[in-house]
C-alpha cells in the first residue's frame, strides 16, 4: 500500500542552527502514529515544515509527499488546499489558537467555505453539526459566541471541529492536551480517537507524554535532537525499546503494576542545535556509547519487519536491557 504521507530527509535550520537533521517518516491511510521526544527534539517543527507553516527565515530541505505529490516548494494555492483540506492541524494552547475578535461561527464557516462547496444555510447547518459532533452543548446558540466565552477544553473541541471542517485525511494533533486538566485531557483524547475511527482519518499525535501515545497510537516514532531514533509498533516499543534514548524515556516512567523500582533519569541535557556533537547526537549522554558512536551519525536501519532503529550499538543495547530484566 502506498503511504498517505512520506517524509524523506526533511531538514530545517533556523539561522544556521539545524533543528531537524534528516527526518524520514511514512504514514499509511487511517494510521495513528505517535511522535514522542523531549521539548526541542523537532516533533512540531517536522509538521510545521511539512505544511509550510514555519517563518520565512527557516531553511527547509528534503521531501514531503502527500499521495506522491511533493509539498515542499508547492505553489501557495496548492498548499492552501492541502492545509485544512487534506491535512489539518490542532495546537497545544487552545486559548490563543482561536482569533479573539471573531465569532466561532465566523472561524468555523471560514474553514467550511474554503474546503467544502457549501452555500448559505448549509454552511451554518454544517457548522452546528460539527459543534454537536465534538460535544459543545447548545451548539446553535454558541456559534455566536467568541473564543473567550469558552473554557480551555471547549476551545480545544472547537479547534477539533474546525480541523474536521475540511474532511481531512490526516489530523496532526500537536500536544493537544498539554495545556488542559487531567480529566479534560482524557475526554479530548477519547474524542479524538472516536472521531478518527468514525472518519477513518489518519492521525499524528505529538506528545511528550508516553502514556498518552501508547494508548492512542498504532505506531510510535521517538525523536531526539532533530532525528527519528527509533520507530516501532506501540506495544513493542514499550515492551522492548532498543535505542538507549527510548530505553531512557521508558525507564523514566513509573510502572503502574509490579514491584516499585527506582525511576532512572537520563543524565545530561539535549545538545544545543548550534553545537551538535559529531556522530550520534545521543552519544554524550549514552551509557553504552563506544568510540565509533562519535564518528558518524547512525541512520535508521531495520531490525525486524516493522521496526527501525538508528543506533550502531542496538544489539548491545538490547542485550543490556534483557540482562537487567533477567536480574
Amino acid at each position, binding site marked *: 500500500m502506498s503511504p498517505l504521507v512520506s517524509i524523506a530527509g526533511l531538514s530545517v535550520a533556523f539561522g544556521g542552527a539545524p533543528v531537524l537533521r534528516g527526518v524520514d517518516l511514512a504514514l499509511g491511510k487511517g494510521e495513528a502514529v505517535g511522535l514522542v521526544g523531549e521539548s526541542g527534539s523537532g516533533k512540531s517543527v517536522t509538521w510545521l515544515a511539512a505544511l509550510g*507553516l514555519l517563518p520565512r527565515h527557516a531553511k527547509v530541505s528534503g521531501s514531503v509527499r502527500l499521495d506522491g505529490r511533493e509539498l515542499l516548494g508547492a505553489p*501557495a494555492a496548492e498548499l492552501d488546499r492541502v492545509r485544512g483540506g487534506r491535512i489539518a492541524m490542532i495546537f497545544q494552547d487552545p486559548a490563543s*489558537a482561536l482569533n*479573539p*475578535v471573531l465569532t466561532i461561527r465566523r472561524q468555523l464557516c471560514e*474553514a467550511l467555505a*474554503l474546503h467544502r462547496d457549501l452555500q448559505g444555510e448549509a454552511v451554518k447547518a454544517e457548522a452546528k453539526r460539527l459543534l454537536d459532533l465534538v460535544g459543545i452543548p447548545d451548539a446553535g446558540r454558541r456559534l455566536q459566541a*467568541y473564543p473567550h466565552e469558552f473554557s480551555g477544553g471547549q476551545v480545544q473541541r472547537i479547534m477539533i471541529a*474546525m480541523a474536521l*471542517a475540511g474532511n481531512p485525511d490526516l489530523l496532526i494533533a500537536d500536544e493537544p492536551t498539554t495545556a488542559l486538566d487531567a480529566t479534560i485531557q482524557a475526554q479530548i483524547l477519547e474524542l479524538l480517537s472516536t472521531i478518527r475511527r468514525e472518519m477513518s482519518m489518519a492521525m499524528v499525535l505529538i506528545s511528550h507524554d508516553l502514556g498518552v501515545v501508547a494508548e492512542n497510537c498504532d505506531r510510535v516514532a521517538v525523536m531526539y535532537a532533530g532525528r527519528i531514533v527509533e520507530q516501532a509498533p506501540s506495544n513493542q516499543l514499550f515492551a522492548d525499546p532498543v535505542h538507549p534514548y527510548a530505553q531512557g524515556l521508558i525507564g523514566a516512567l513509573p510502572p503502574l503494576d509490579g514491584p516499585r523500582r527506582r525511576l532512572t533519569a537520563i543524565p545530561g541535557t539535549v545538545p544545543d542545535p548550534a553545537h551538535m556533537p559529531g556522530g550520534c547526537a545521543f552519544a554524550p549522554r549514552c551509557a553504552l556509547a563506544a568510540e565509533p558512536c562519535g564518528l558518524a551519525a547512525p541512520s535508521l536501519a531495520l531490525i525486524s519487519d516493522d521496526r527501525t532503529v538508528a543506533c550502531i550499538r542496538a544489539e548491545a543495547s538490547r542485550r543490556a536491557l534483557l540482562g537487567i530484566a533477567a536480574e
Partner: protein
Amino acid sequence: MGRYFAIRIGRAALTIVLVVTFAFVVLRLSGDPALMILGPEAPPEVIAAFRKAWGLDDPIWFQYLDYFSAIAKGELGRSMRDGRPAIELVLERIPATLALTLPAFFFKVALGVPAGIYAALHRGSAIDRAVMMTAVAGFTVPSFVLALILVLVFAVQLGWLPSGGQDSWRHAILPITTLSLGGAAVLARFTRSAMLEVLGQPYIRTASAKGVPWRMVVTSHALPNAAIPTVTILGFMVGTLIAGAVVVESVFAWPGVGRLLVVAVANRDLAVVQCILLLVAMTMVTSNLIVDFLYGFLDPRLRAKGAHA
C-alpha cells in the same frame, strides 16, 4: 455596560477639572496680567484700577471659586486685552486651525497606516528598513526644525511656496506637510509593531493551518486585531486637532488657536488661556471616550468585561 461608561465619563469630568485648576494656578503664579498688558511704565493708579476691575486683588481661592461658578453658568470670561468674550476670540480661530489639522490628520492616516502594515508584512526587507528609518527621523526631528528645513528648501531656496501667512491654499501646504510627516511617522511605527505583534500570535498560524490564503489571513485575521492598539494613537491624534499646531502655527504665522494661545500666555490674558485649555481638555477627553467606545466595538473581550463591571 452603563456603569462601565458612567465611570469613564466621571473620570473624564475629573480630568477636565484638574486641567483647568492646574492652568488657573500656574498662570496666577507666573506673572501679573496687569503689568504684562499695561506695561511696566503704566502709572500705579491705572494698574490698581485694572487689578480691581478684573478681580485680581481678591484672594486666589475666591478667584478660583468665582471662576468655576462662572464656568458652571457657561461664562468663560472676557479677554483682558480687548474686553471681548474669550470664547468668541477662540471660536473665530478654530476654522483656521482645523484647515491645517484636519487635512494633516487625513495624510497621517493615509501615509502612516499603510506604510506600517507594509513594513510589518515585509519585515527585514529594504523597504521595511527605509520606512523605519524615515519614521525614526520623522519621529525624532522636532516639528519646528522640520518646519524650518521645509521653509529653507521650498520657500527660500526653490521659491515654490510662501514661508508664512494665510492668504491662499498654497500657504497651507508647508504647515500641513510639517504636521503630517511627524504624525505619519508615529503612526507607521505604531502600526508596524502592532501588526508584528499580531502576526506572531498562534491564531494567525491556526488560520494558515486551516488553509486561509495569506492575503485573507492578513485582512480578516491580523488587521482587526492590530486595529485595537492603533485606535489608541488615532484617538490621541483626534484629541490634538484643536491645539496640536501651536508650534507650526507660530513658525508659519498662521492665525489659528495655537498662535492665539502663545500670544495670550505671553500677555497673561487669563480668560483666553483658560478658555483654550478648557477646550483642549474637552476635545482630548472626548476623543478618549470615543476610543473607549471603539475598544468595546473592536474587542469582544472588553465588551464582556464592560457588561460585568
